[in-house]
C-alpha cells in the first residue's frame, strides 16, 4: 500500500503527499523526508503576494487546530523565480496549489505555471469569488464546472480540484469532474470558531479546522464521494498515523495528504509511511 500509485496519469512513488500550507517550502524539514514523499503540494500561490492575516492565526481546539493564516504567500512571480526551481530539484512531483478570487486569476496562475516543470496543479476553490459578491467557488457548482472547463483550455496537464468539505460538496465534486479535473482532493479545512478571553473582551477567532477531530467527518465524505465519482480521490483530513491513512484508502481514496501531522511532528511523513507499510504487511 506504500508502493507506486497512479492518479489519472500522474505516477507517484507512494500515496503520501504533503498537504498545502503545512510544510513551508521545505527549508526546515529533513531533505531525506522531503525526497521520500509521493508528492509535494505547495502552499497556495496567488497572483500577487499576500501578507496573510493579523495574529492570532492559531487556536488549539479539542483534538484540532484552527488556523487563519490568510493564505500568506510570496505571489506567483517570486514563487516561480525564487522557490519553484529549488522545489523541483528535491525529487518528488511538485503540485502547485493555486488560489484566486476570480476565474481570471485562476487562469492566469495556470498560464503562469506552464512549462515550469510542475507535475500538476491543485485548485483551491475555498476562496470567495469577488465576481459573485463573495460567494465562495466551493459553494457554486456551476461556477466550478465552468472554471475547470476553462482551466483545461490553458492547462492540459494534471489538475486536482481541492474541495471544501461544507456546502453542496457532492455537486461541486461532480461539477469539477465533469469540467475535466484529473482528481479531487477531499478536503480542505472546516469553517470553525474559537473564542478566547482577551484584554479587550472575548476574541472571536474564525478560521479553518484541521487535525484528528475532523477525520471522522472527512473520512465519511471520502467514503460517500468515492462511490459516486470516477476520478481518483486524494484524501486529506486528520491523518496522523499509518492507520488513519489506511482507513482512507479503505474508504476509497487512491492517495492521501498529510498536513497538521507534520506541523506537530516533522518526522510524521516518514513515520506514517512506515506505519502504513507495516499495516499492509500485516494484512
Amino acid at each position: 500500500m506504500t508502493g507506486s500509485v497512479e492518479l489519472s496519469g500522474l505516477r507517484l512513488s507512494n500515496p503520501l503527499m504533503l498537504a498545502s500550507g503545512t510544510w513551508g517550502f521545505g527549508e526546515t524539514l529533513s531533505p531525506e523526508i522531503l525526497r521520500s514523499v509521493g508528492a509535494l503540494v505547495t502552499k497556495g500561490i496567488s497572483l500577487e503576494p499576500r501578507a496573510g492575516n493579523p495574529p492570532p492565526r492559531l487556536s488549539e481546539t479539542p483534538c484540532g487546530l484552527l488556523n487563519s493564516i490568510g493564505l500568506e504567500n510570496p505571489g506567483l512571480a517570486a514563487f516561480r523565480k525564487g522557490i519553484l526551481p529549488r522545489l523541483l530539484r528535491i525529487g518528488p512531483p511538485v503540485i502547485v496549489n493555486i488560489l484566486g478570487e476570480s476565474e481570471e486569476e485562476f487562469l492566469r496562475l495556470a498560464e503562469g505555471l506552464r512549462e515550469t516543470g510542475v507535475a500538476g496543479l491543485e485548485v483551491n476553490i475555498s476562496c470567495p469569488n469577488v465576481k459573485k459578491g463573495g460567494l465562495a467557488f466551493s459553494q457554486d457548482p456551476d461556477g466550478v464546472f465552468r472554471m475547470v472547463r476553462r482551466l483545461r483550455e490553458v492547462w492540459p496537464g494534471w489538475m486536482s480540484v481541492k474541495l471544501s468539505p461544507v456546502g453542496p460538496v457532492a455537486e461541486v465534486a461532480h461539477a469539477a469532474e465533469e469540467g475535466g479535473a484529473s482528481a479531487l482532493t477531499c478536503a480542505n479545512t472546516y469553517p470553525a470558531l474559537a473564542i478566547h478571553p482577551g484584554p479587550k473582551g472575548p476574541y472571536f477567532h474564525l478560521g479553518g479546522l484541521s487535525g484528528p477531530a475532523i477525520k471522522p467527518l472527512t473520512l465519511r465524505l471520502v467514503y460517500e464521494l468515492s462511490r459516486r465519482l470516477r476520478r481518483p480521490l486524494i484524501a486529506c483530513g486528520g491523518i496522523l498515523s499509518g492507520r488513519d491513512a489506511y482507513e482512507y484508502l479503505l474508504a476509497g481514496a487512491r492517495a492521501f495528504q498529510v498536513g497538521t501531522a507534520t506541523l506537530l511532528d516533522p518526522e510524521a511523513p516518514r513515520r506514517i509511511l512506515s506505519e502504513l507499510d507495516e499495516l499492509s504487511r500485516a494484512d
Partner: protein
Amino acid sequence: MRGRGLCPYLSLLETDPLRDRGLRKGFFSPAPPPSAASSRGPFRRAPLGLHLFLRENGLVRPAKVRSRRRLAPGYFLLEIEAPEAAPRARPGQFVRLKAWPGYDPLLPRPFSIHARSEKTLSFLIQERGRATAVLSRLRPGEEVWWDGPLGHPFPLPERGEVWLVAGGVGLAPFFFYLETLRARGLSARLFYGARTRGDLVRLSALERLCPVQVATEDGSRGRPGLVTDLLREALKKGSPEFILACGPPGMLAAVGHLGERAGVPVYLSLEAMMACGRGLCLGCAVSRKGGGYLKVCVEGPVFPAEEVDLDRLG
C-alpha cells in the same frame, strides 16, 4: 430568500479581515537578510542561516525526564535527557515539549532553554493551563517528547555590557544566557520584575552570575513598581551595549520605547502561539513595524525592537 442563488450565502469560510481592510495585497516576509539587521548592532544569526541549522539540529526525540523540581508555588524546573540537543543548544533558543499521550491537548508547547548540561536541557516553567499542569507532575524516568533546539539564539555583545530585562517567567532563557556570557568573560546586569515576591525565582543562582535588581508590583520585594522603572532609572546613569528583554507584551513594548528614547539598541524575545516551531505553518506571526508580519519561530524569537510593531504586541 430560499433557493441557492438568491440567498446571500453565509461566509462559512475562512474570513480574511485584511481583505476587508484593504490591506490584503502585502508582501511575503522572508527572513530579513543578515546585513539589514546587523546595521543595528551585532545581531548574529547562526552561521549557515537558521534554516540549515534547524535541518541539521532541530531534532525530535522521545526522551526521559531527569528531574523535576518545584521552585516556588506555580513554578518548577524540568530537566530532560537530551544528549543530541544539549551540545547544540544556544541561549535564546526554545524546545517544544509534549508529555502526555493522545491528541488533547494537540500541540506541543514551546519553552525556552533555561540551562543545559552535557546531556540534559532544563526548562523553567510556570504552571498556566493544561499542558504545564501535566509537566508539573512528571517524575524522573517518565517519557517526554522533545523537539529542538529551535529558533535563533540571542545576540552576544561584542565587548560591552548587556542589560537583561526579565518580566515574570520571561526570566527563563536568561540563566543559560548569563552562564554563556560568563564563560566568555562578558558582563551583564539583570533587571527582574514580577507581580509579587513569590514570582521571583532562582535569585541566589542569578546573583552569582551578575548584579541583579528586582522589582515587584506589590512592593513585597525589591523596588515597588515595574521592572521598567528600574530600567528607566538605570538608563539615566549609564547605558549598555544593548538591552535584551523577555516578558509580557506590555513590558516588551515599554522597554522598546525606553531604548529608543535612550538611543540604546533593544532586542525583544517574543512569544506567539505555535503549531510547528520551524516555519512550516506561518502561524506564529507578530506585526512588523511598517506592515507585514514576522514569524517568531524562524525569524525570532529574538528581534531588534525597531522591527516590531510594539503597539500591536498583544
